[in-house]
Structures are given as C-alpha cells and as structure tokens.
C-alpha cells in the first residue's frame, strides 16, 4: 500500500506515532516574512511588495522573535518571502535559522531555489530545515512564463537535485501508513497549470516530496493577470483527479486548517494568522512581544464566528478565488 507523504514542520513525528497535537488551543507555527523582495516576478505575486522598504524588521528583532517563539513552545518556523535563499541575504537567513535550530524549532523555508548552492543546502540540512520548492509547472515554457524569468524552471530543478543529495532528500521517519519527509513542492493553482495537477502530484511523489496546492491570491498581482483566473469547478475537478491518482499525496483533511494555529509576523511587524492573512490584528512592535501577538491571534481564532459557525470555507482565503 502506498504510504502517504507528510512534511516535517507542518506535520510532526509524534503524529505518526499516534499522538495528538493540540492545534485547537495553541500556537504551533511561527511564520516570519523577513522581506518580500525577490529575484523573480511571478505573475500572481505582489509586485508592489517586492522591494526593500524603510522600517523593516532588523536582524536583532527577527532573532528575538524566534527566540521568544522557542520559549513559548512554538514548534516550527516558516520562513517566507520574497525569496529567502538569496546570496546577498544568506548570512541573515543563517542567523535566523540558527536561532530556530538552537531553540529546537524545525524551520521550513519557501524558496524558488534559483540561488541555492550545495554549500547552502548542506548547511540547511544540518540545521533541521525542510525546504518548500515552488513547482508551478513541469513545462519549462509555462514555468518561465509564470515566473517571468527565463531559465527559472531549470534553476529550480537544479536546486531540487542539490537538496535531494543532502539529508533533506531522505525520509525522516515512517510508520506502516505514512512517511515524514523534508521536501515540499508547492503549486499555485491557476488556469495555466490546472491541466497538470495529476502530473505535478506524481512528480512530487517521484521525488519523495509532499505536494501542496496553494491558493491563487487575488490580493496580489493575479488580480491584474486575468489569464490566471481559474474557476472553482475546474480547480476542484482537477484536484479530485490528482488525489484519486496519487494516494501518496492524500491525507486526512482537518478542519479548521492547521494554519489557524499560526502567528505570522510580516516584514514591518504586522501580525496576522496565516501567511495569507492580510486582516492584521496589530503590530508586534506595538504589542511588545510575540506572546502578546499570540494572545491576540488566539482570541481571534477562537472567536465563535470562526468555530461555532464553521462552514468549511476559510475566512482568510474566501476572497482569493474567482468563482463562476
């Protein structure tokens, strides 16, 4: 029987041993968006955010947030950009990741991989990092068109191969039904790649990676690229087929989403629930601590409108999609 792939950092070894994690009343994930500049210009991303701005978090602030996260018992640091693994920010990334490692957190880095070297991958592998690579298409021309960067497909595939040569490419743990892995392939579903969902899911399985479908966020530049718009019907049908034909990528669907057990700190300190939440509840600089930010998040997520009236639609992402 095919074993289901789960990602270390979003899932945990204890879960494979049958132990429950209390997502419902604790903050499990800290998402940190240290910057949003990027060396690519993906069509669906936020063009207006892709630059360095005054007032962004300092390294000292970022390290302090991660340290406090460790003290609060947070399990995972999600590092998202912009692009995290850039040569000219590598030393900053290392210091943030090292703090997470020293605090016992797993780090999950979302990256396009374009500037990742073997040395970077080895260092990340030795600091308990899981890597999430952007795999939006298996067709180089479609991939490059989405990223608006010639050669981007090849550079990501090269990075995937580099990562797989390290311990990041190995199975962390497994039981009779599941495997815990450190590689994630993410796809932003859209009209240009919806035909590829079955292939993308299989490609991830072939590479020992968990596959994750990301929401096309119409708050970003997708709003100005109508060619990306995708109906829920087409998306859902393609997803059903992808899951049906790729049992390794299936999992128990848990509602509410795990990322309600997350606190996100954006580059200038804005606090939200998950990384796709733009209804900020405050700023960590004003709130004074990560604990204060977590308390606000918990109060918001635990609110009756999120729990008692739950209807299966994410209140954060509900407006991200074009529906028919």
């Amino acid at each position: 029987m095919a074993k289901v792939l789960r990602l270390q950092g979003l899932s945990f070894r204890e879960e494979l041993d049958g132990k429950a994690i209390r997502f419902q009343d604790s903050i499990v994930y800290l998402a940190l968006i240290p910057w949003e500049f990027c060396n690519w210009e993906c069509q669906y991303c936020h063009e207006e955010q892709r630059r360095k701005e005054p007032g962004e978090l300092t390294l000292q602030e970022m390290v302090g947030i991660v340290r406090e996260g460790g003290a609060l018992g947070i399990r995972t640091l999600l590092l998202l950009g912009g692009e995290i693994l850039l040569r000219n920010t590598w030393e900053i990334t290392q210091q943030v990741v090292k703090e997470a490692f020293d605090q016992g957190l797993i780090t999950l880095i979302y990256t396009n991989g374009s500037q990742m070297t073997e040395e970077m991958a080895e260092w990340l592998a030795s600091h308990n990092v899981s890597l999430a690579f952007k795999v939006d298409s298996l067709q180089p021309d479609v991939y490059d068109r989405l990223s608006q960067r010639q050669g981007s497909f090849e550079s990501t595939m090269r990075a995937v191969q580099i990562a797989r040569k390290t311990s990041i490419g190995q199975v962390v743990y497994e039981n009779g039904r599941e495997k815990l892995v450190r590689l994630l392939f993410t796809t932003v579903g859209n009209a240009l790649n919806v035909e590829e969902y079955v292939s993308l899911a299989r490609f991830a399985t072939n590479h020992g990676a968990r596959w994750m479908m990301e929401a096309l966020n119409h708050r970003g530049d997708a709003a100005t690229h109508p060619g990306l718009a995708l109906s829920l019907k087409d998306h859902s049908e393609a997803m059903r087929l992808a899951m049906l034909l790729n049992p390794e990528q299936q999992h128990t669907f848990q509602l509410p989403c795990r990322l309600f057990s997350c606190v996100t700190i954006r580059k200038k300190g804005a606090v939200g629930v998950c990384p796709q939440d733009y209804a900020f509840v405050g700023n960590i600089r004003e709130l004074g601590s990560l604990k204060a930010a977590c308390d606000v998040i918990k109060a918001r997520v635990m609110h009756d409108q999120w729990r008692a009236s739950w209807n299966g639609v994410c209140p954060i992402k509900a407006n991200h999609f074009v529906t028919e």
Partner: protein
Amino acid sequence: MSLSAVKTVLLRAATDAKFRASLLKNPDSLLADFDLTEEERQSLRCLSEDRIANAVNQAEFSDLSLNDMRI
C-alpha cells in the same frame, strides 16, 4: 498532457469491464493509445480496482474543497 485523456481513461475503466481488466493487467500497452504525460501514465498504472470504483462515485472526496488543500 491532457486532463481530459485522464478522465476518459478513468471513465472507461469504470464502465467497461474489458477495458478495466486490460488497464489493471497490462496498462502500458493500453495507455500508449492516449495522449498522457509520463507522470499521468505512472499515476494511472498505480490504479487498483477499488480506486477505479471510487473514481465513479468519488464518495471519499465528496467533502474536498479548495480550502482543505493548504496542508
């Protein structure tokens, strides 16, 4: 690459016993007639009889919505 080809294979497998038996026993030659990617062929090769049945009623995916795929 063609999602419609994948759907065609699944539908025929679910409704045509001879086709289904051929898919389960000798998928490579059967799938050669369809416009599929290598990954789609691999996925279809892994189908079991049970999963073909599920392709029809898709009962196990009836509650799958867009939001559920985040993790």
